[in-house]
């Protein structure tokens, strides 16, 4: 009697991940996004091994050289090689924002699911606190934290993670509300499972995808936020190369030395586009079960 049901082999985690990736690259936008992202990540990891020049070597005689065969993207106002600084410039940004969004994902997801499940007064209080934080301009709050605690990575990662996690709380809570009314949760409750067990076994597998997609989206926003901080001089301290900082330093010279600002802008925007496209394709790949079902 079961001949009619499509045979599908049980999947382990690896083959599931593989399937998601394959679906992602099956669309041109996903493929492009993933290529850009992988390119940036590889560059960030391996670039110190092959940069042509020293990123902090100052040479006044080479000030603001236009692009040449020696200095591909020209030199900046201190005579440093822009190409070298550009390919190194994503390292800090990528590291900080990657771990930052991971933190945002974890705390935002945990608080969101918990509030969605327990509801009632606890939910009310927590959500009002989140709302209060949402009403504070994040950049102001960040500036306050950074000026009080310094600009080290140890401060930046959790601070960014906290501020970008607020949005994830709302998404996780909404996703939890979607499944909470379903009978399988009621059934688990009636059996007498603990809250933790309900969250871990019943809710998490059903909201995981939504939270992960949201986290991936937040990553690109956080990257922009982090670069803005650097631009304002509150991110990475010189002479560490960073796109935000580079744009900030070279912005006055834009009219006659466009190259020194163009390269970091291109680096930053291509990475953001890459992350956005990937996150988009990721979302579509995870939602695959609904959209490609036979229209019966």
């Amino acid at each position: 009697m079961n001949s009619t049901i499509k045979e599908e082999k049980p999947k382990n985690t690896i083959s599931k991940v593989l399937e998601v990736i394959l679906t992602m690259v099956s669309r041109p936008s996903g493929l492009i996004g993933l290529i850009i992202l992988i390119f940036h990540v590889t560059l960030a990891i391996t670039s110190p091994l092959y940069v042509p020049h020293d990123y902090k070597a100052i040479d006044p005689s080479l000030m603001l050289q236009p692009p040449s065969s020696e200095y591909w993207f020209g030199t900046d106002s201190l005579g440093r090689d822009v190409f070298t600084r550009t390919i190194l410039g994503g390292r800090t940004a990528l590291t900080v924002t990657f771990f930052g969004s991971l933190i945002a994902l974890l705390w935002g997801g945990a608080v969101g699911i918990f509030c969605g499940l327990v509801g009632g007064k606890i939910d009310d209080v927590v959500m009002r606190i989140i709302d209060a934080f949402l009403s504070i301009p994040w950049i102001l709050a960040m500036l306050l934290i950074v000026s009080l605690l310094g600009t080290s990575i140890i401060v930046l990662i959790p601070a960014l993670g906290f501020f970008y996690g607020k949005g994830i709380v709302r998404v996780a809570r909404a996703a939890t509300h979607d499944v909470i009314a379903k009978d399988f949760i009621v059934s688990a409750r009636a059996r007498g499972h603990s809250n933790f067990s309900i969250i871990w076994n019943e809710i998490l597998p059903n909201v995981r995808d939504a939270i992960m997609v949201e986290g991936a989206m937040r990553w690109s926003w956080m990257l922009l936020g982090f670069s803005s901080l650097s631009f304002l001089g509150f991110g990475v301290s010189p002479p560490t190369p960073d796109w935000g900082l580079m744009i900030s330093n070279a912005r006055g010279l834009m009219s006659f030395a466009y190259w020194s600002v163009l390269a970091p802008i291109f680096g930053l925007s291509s990475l953001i586009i890459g992350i956005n496209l990937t996150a988009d394709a990721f979302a579509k790949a995870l939602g695959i079960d609904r959209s490609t079902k036979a229209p019966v």
Partner: protein
Amino acid sequence: MQQVVQEIKNLSIGFTSKKGQQISILKNINTKIKKGETVGIVGESGSGKSTLALAMMGYVKHGLYTISGECLYQSNNILKMKNRELEGIRGRKIAMIPQNAGQSLTPNLKIGYQIDEALKLHTNLKKENRDNKISELLNKVRLPSPEAIAKRYPHELSGGQQQRVAVAMALAGNPDLLLLDEPTTGLDVTTQAHVLELLNFIAKDTGTSMVYVSHDLGAIAQVSDRVIVMYSGEIVLDGPVRNILKNPIHPYTYGLLKSIPKLTLSGLPDSMSGSQPQPGTIKQGCSFYVRCQFAEDKCKINSPKLEFVDEFNTSVRCFNHKKLHKQKSIDTSSSKQLINKIQKNEILDISSVSISYAKQKFLEQLLNKIDDSNPTVKDININIDKGETLALVGESGSGKSTILKSIAGLIKTKDGTIKFDKKKILSNDLKKRDANNLRAIQLIFQNPDESLNPNHTVEEIVSQPLKLYFGLTGEELKQKIIEVLEKVRLGEFYLTRYPRQLSGGEKQRVAVARAFAAKPDIILCDEVTSALDVSVQAAVLNLLQELKEDFGTTYIFVSHDLAVVRAISDRVAVLYQGRLCEIGPSDSVYKFPSHPYTEVLLGAVLEPDPDVKPKLVAEDIVEEKPPEKGCSFQGRCPRILGEICKTNVPPWQIDENGNAIRCHIKINDLKKQQKLN
């Protein structure tokens, strides 16, 4: 020769699968809808009946396309028409009434405005004439005080009234053909009977042809002149309603009719094995071959053609239909009788339980009390014996699911106690119940799509209670899971499947397995069969009964389907507005309904027999709240005595069969009056 409204010629509709294969959902459909005729299309979910109905409107769902054939309306193929041409036909010449009227009416527009819109679009009437027409239409669908209704918003109407408004809107353009897609499926029994009666009246009154799509043979029997039975995208039987339902000459229809529980018969119906094949999986032979009890070798290789049988004026797609002739009418005496070993000790004692949904005000919250003199559920006293099946029946809002949830501890009771196993009082608070009490009471839900976690495999689903209550792990756990699955007749290979890979019946079996894995004493069944197809329903009911006989489990079975309740229960409790009306052994409740509400309910049940018409005794008004004083049924009672019913709560009376009813009229007088009708 009657005029033909629509003709469908050789129509095939399908889609292209991911592998590039063309898969048909409808295969070579040929039929004619004549003027003034009501055609019922029946079939289980996935048989293509809705696709066919939509094609009659020139609509093909996204992703599907017409493979071949045509759908002729006034000798034009509407499937090839441009949108502009279709606008002139849809709604005006061919109108559709959807399944859920509540969702198809715009929530923020008044009823009158919405009908006016339809009139503007489909007629050339002037403003003042349109107003009259609106009243006329609302009158025609028998809505009381049309002017008042026109000023209301959809949410201010009951489900039955919304469906009537949808009918009125469809009639606005004076259509030649009315398509109805499961129009009464979500409605209560009494409302359903009233709406069907209205549709019958409209069909006769206006001479509109109707196509009535439903899975419910009872509804089809009441409205149709002709019935088309669909299976796996094909017409398998097409003929006059009496011939089809009384003398089905196709094995599928025969099996289907046998699997429907009947009001007049106790005991479980026969079930049909298997389920409908997925589109595209049948390569050759008859699509019903795997499930057919009359199948022969040739059925596996050759697909039968639709062949006209003079004797019955019916077309049938079967090689062996002559064999079925001899079977003559449906023989139901073979239905299985229940053998329940009921031990006379109370396993559950529900005494004077009240449940209130009233929200606490701030002050009351502080004082931790609920002040509600008129709770949703009141004065429920039921004792349940071990091994018994007690059914709670009633229409929506009768509080039957609420009572079930309070037994499970999901809703707090306001007053009263629920005692388990004679002495143990079950706590109001789920968290305070001990593991053994939690294990003893398990729930099975209505819709297995919702009650099984879509991201868990069958193994994980069934393992939950085993891990929680018995602490099983590793190999022992796995063995136990396999053992439990075998009990519900699912093989070991189901372990790694996800719910989406299972059919509806298989999913419900997994839900049953999960409940039984806890070795419960009581299983609470909340409308467990209403989301399932008829043939699957019978199989699940049979399974539940067998498991019960094996384990001696007690069932509390909630359903709105009175025929299903009749089949499975030992005792029935009839509820209205959260108050008990009647409670007694099923046989006697169904044979001699004594309480006026039971009489109304049973009278409205639709039998799959065109000659048994429902008795419409009471109005189908829906009451929002139970009355403050007196009898709960006073608002709709056809036998109301007068003032006493409105002021005093009726006393309990018990007759010689053990039926207890709550009514001011003497039980024997009631019986006499009922016999007179």
